[in-house]
């Protein structure tokens, strides 16, 4: 029988932080201190290790920046909720079960539900709301894709193990992995720097990704009008034409920096659809990190809409413009915003026009002190949960690795709403 002071070793741990949700982690927990045993990028390890910092292990609730006990924070939150005429539940980083609870809470209060990444994932979903789409998933790419095109400026920083664990793999079931061709197109300097392996199967091509549509037109017409050199263009075109299963990857969050974003993702999608008349090809639009896939999927089955709904009585309405949280906040049309931030280190931008309650991991940062801050545990570290991977189809279990002094975000929501 292990003693309570013994360290615990957890295998096959699912990382809750980036949407690749790599699940091969081995983590030792010693006196609630987490140590990642795998040889993985530092940026991944640091996500766990920052939870070890003493300042994040004993953080208390606070009211306007003044520490208080949890009971008082709950009472004050209830008071703010009672006084509110329009409450927004602004999900910043969540899993399936937090989303479920956030919806349930919003239905109690006739509230509005949104996610910080809605603008991006609504663009992703709009691809198949307007035309045909051929999609694939990471295991298919690993095992079947002989030619992979990745449009990236910073993708390997956002998804640190994408190349090593999923694309440039040494094993593939249906093809000879040695013959894989991986073209990384975009900011060559960033891509080479962020990709932590050297592999002769990878070709980096410097390109301004705002011109992806030109490149696709060039492929279709077999005539290079893009800024890619003719040498690379010819190689790319030959690889595409000879491929047995072409995969094209991108992240809409990255392309969203271009005003041409919608046009680009529609053109990639249309290009792949056209290829499938005679050969096999598929797209993978990598979803964002902050639990946005888990959020939009859960919203989808519970309401039919991916985000931005408002409850009125026992019904709800969807309006992607009217119920955009940032708009409601900036226009002063909401008097209370409840931020739920169980995973992310991103800084929350609170607005002093309205009251703010933050239910957040102890490492949550914000620009101004919220009216109430209640620390919550991290799903996948402090309590169990359920997340969707970046390809939208694989869902994984999050474990509880240690005893936590913090309640889950859903438990806190339940207690402040009742």
């Amino acid at each position, binding site marked *: 029988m292990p003693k309570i002071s013994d360290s615990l070793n957890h*295998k*096959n741990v*699912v990382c809750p932080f980036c949407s690749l949700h790599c*699940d*091969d982690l081995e983590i030792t927990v010693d006196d609630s201190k987490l140590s990642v045993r795998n040889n993985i990028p530092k940026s991944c390890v640091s996500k766990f290790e920052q939870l070890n910092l003493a300042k994040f292990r004993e953080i208390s609730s606070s009211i306007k920046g003044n520490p208080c006990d949890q009971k008082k924070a709950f009472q004050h939150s209830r008071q703010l909720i009672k006084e509110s005429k329009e409450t927004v539940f602004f999900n910043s980083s969540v899993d*399936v*079960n937090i989303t*479920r609870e956030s919806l349930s809470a919003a239905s109690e209060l006739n509230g509005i539900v949104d996610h910080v990444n809605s603008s991006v994932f609504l663009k992703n*979903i709009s691809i*198949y*709301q*307007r*035309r*045909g*789409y*051929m*999609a*694939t*998933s*990471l*295991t*298919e790419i*690993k*095992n*079947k894709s002989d030619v992979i095109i990745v449009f990236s400026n910073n993708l390997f920083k956002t998804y640190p193990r994408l190349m090593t*664990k999923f694309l440039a793999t040494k*094993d*593939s*079931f*249906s093809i000879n992995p040695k013959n894989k061709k991986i073209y990384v197109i975009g900011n060559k300097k960033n891509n080479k720097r962020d990709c932590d392996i050297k592999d002769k199967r990878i070709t980096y091509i410097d390109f301004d990704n705002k011109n992806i549509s030109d490149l696709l037109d060039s492929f279709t017409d077999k005539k290079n009008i893009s800024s890619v050199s003719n040498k690379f263009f010819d190689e790319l075109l030959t690889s595409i034409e000879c491929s*047995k*299963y072409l995969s094209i990857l991108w992240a809409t969050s990255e392309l969203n920096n271009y005003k041409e974003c919608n046009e680009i993702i529609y053109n990639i999608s249309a290009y792949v659809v056209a290829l*499938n008349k005679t*050969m*096999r090809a*598929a797209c993978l639009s990598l979803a964002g990190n902050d639990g946005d896939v888990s959020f*939009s*999927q*859960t919203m*989808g*089955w*519970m*309401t*039919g*809409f*991916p985000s931005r709904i408002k409850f009125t009585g026992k*019904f*709800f*309405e*969807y309006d992607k413009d009217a119920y955009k949280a940032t708009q409601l906040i900036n226009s002063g049309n909401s008097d209370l915003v409840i931020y739920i931030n169980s995973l992310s280190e991103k800084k929350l931008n609170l607005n002093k026009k309205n009251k703010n309650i933050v239910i957040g991991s102890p490492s949550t940062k914000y620009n101004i002190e919220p009216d109430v801050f209640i620390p919550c545990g991290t799903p996948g570290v402090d309590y*169990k*949960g*359920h997340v*969707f991977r970046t390809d*939208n*189809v*694989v*869902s*994984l*279990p999050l474990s509880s690795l240690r005893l936590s002094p913090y309640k889950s975000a859903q438990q806190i929501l339940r207690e402040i709403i009742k």
Partner: protein
Amino acid sequence: MPTLCLKNGNVFDPINKVFNKKKDIYIKDGKITEKLSEKIAETIDCRNKIIMPGAIDLHTHIGGGKVNIARLMLQEFHNNSDNDYDLTADFVPSTLKTGLQYIKMGYTSCFEPAVLPINARQSHAEMADTPFIDKGGYALLGNDDFLLDLISRGANQSEINDYVAFILKATQCIGIKVVNPGGINAFKFNQRALNVDENSVRYKITPRKIVRILARAVYELGVPHPLHVHCSNLGVPGNFKSTIETIKAAEGLPVHITHIQFHSYGNNGDRNFSSASAEITDYVNKIPNLTCDVGQVLFGQTATMSGDSMKQHANHSHAHPDKWLCMDIECEAGCGVVPFKYTDQSFVNALQWAIGLETFLLTEDPDKIFLTTDHPNGAPFTSYPHLIKLLMDKTFRDDLLDQMSVDISKHTILKDIKREYTMSEIATMTRSAPARILGLKNKGSLSKGADADITVYDSNIIDIEDMFASPTHVIKDGHVVVKNGEIKKYTWGKTQVVKPEYDASIEKKLKKYFDKYHTIELPNYTISNDEMSEVIGSHVNEIKCARKRIS
């Protein structure tokens, strides 16, 4: 839990051979019991009422990735003005609306027929968020690289059985389904069709072999529900021949052919599209171990969704509205979502409508055929009362046929069929028969000890469609959850599962495969009972399997 008595109702309980007999039904602790001597908390006067066990839908797409894609794809249809529900469209309802609409029609158990093992968590989470009903799923096999590789390398049947049993346990499912056997996998290698006796290019095995091996695995493991088969060539004119060959592939072992209407097409006539319901039902009637559900088409907008990415991609040009999605998924299977509008102005759609009804009416034994629309592929499940009326009322049926925008009278024998389903046959087809074929001994029955899932209809309502659409009372696990159309109490059903035994050495082989080729770890593929109840949100009820062996 309060006791309950349903007094003086006309009872239809096919398992106990009770048909339209006046009886009192007693309920205690969520179960049906003998006459109670104690004081009964609530008595419902059931004079002029029909009492049946709660209905069971054994094939309805209510949870999983493809259903959610359809919900999000077709938002413009989420404008239902019925104030009793949320806005979602009937053919792609939210989980809440799914539960509400089913229970208000008297359905108390529903089964999702296409659970991708890698997507099982999502399917169960969606079903867990569907109130009232008991639920379950059929895990998809027969297009996964692991199994096809095993078969192509000549693995013995016991090894296949172990793998099938592992999948059932790992995915918390109640049955196994094969969709377009081998075809979804072949599509990933750019094959566009795969006939029953055609080798796939990659694995050099035929759909016939896959069906035979899987049907045997399911049988030998003692899984109550036979292999659930979505045949090759869905929707292709002339496909009745491959449907018959698929039935033969099971070599006499129990097999369930799903949405058989979509697989009962001839290619005669000047339009190369004709009914082959007579040929198909001839088989259904004469082969003892064969059951089927229909997948009836009814007119209106819907969404087709299937694991059959090969055929969904082939049919995407028919999308209405013009948008669609197909996906290759995790070396296991695929999916395709194509919105579709069935109209009686289309010769093909009108004949599909007639073929479905012919299939119902020509199948003699209501124990062998089940009432489905393959929700939402043929029509939303909310159209079941209309479908029941079509089966029970020849005049109504003939009138609709006469009113069709296109004349299909020369292409269907529907008018020559005099049969009208009786109330007893409807009760069998929607209650006792699906319970039996799923191994649900406590469902679909009013026997002592059965789960108190009961529907009460008002026999004073003359229109049979109205009667079936609005039961006066629905009782779930002993609670009155619906009274005169109003929800009285929310309950959350269980997930029905099977867990046949297997040799654990298969997990070592799977671990090697996962370590090398998969992108997740094997332990995270498996869903435990604890995860079902603590994280996903549904308790499981295990149905026992009794191993059999073919000599």
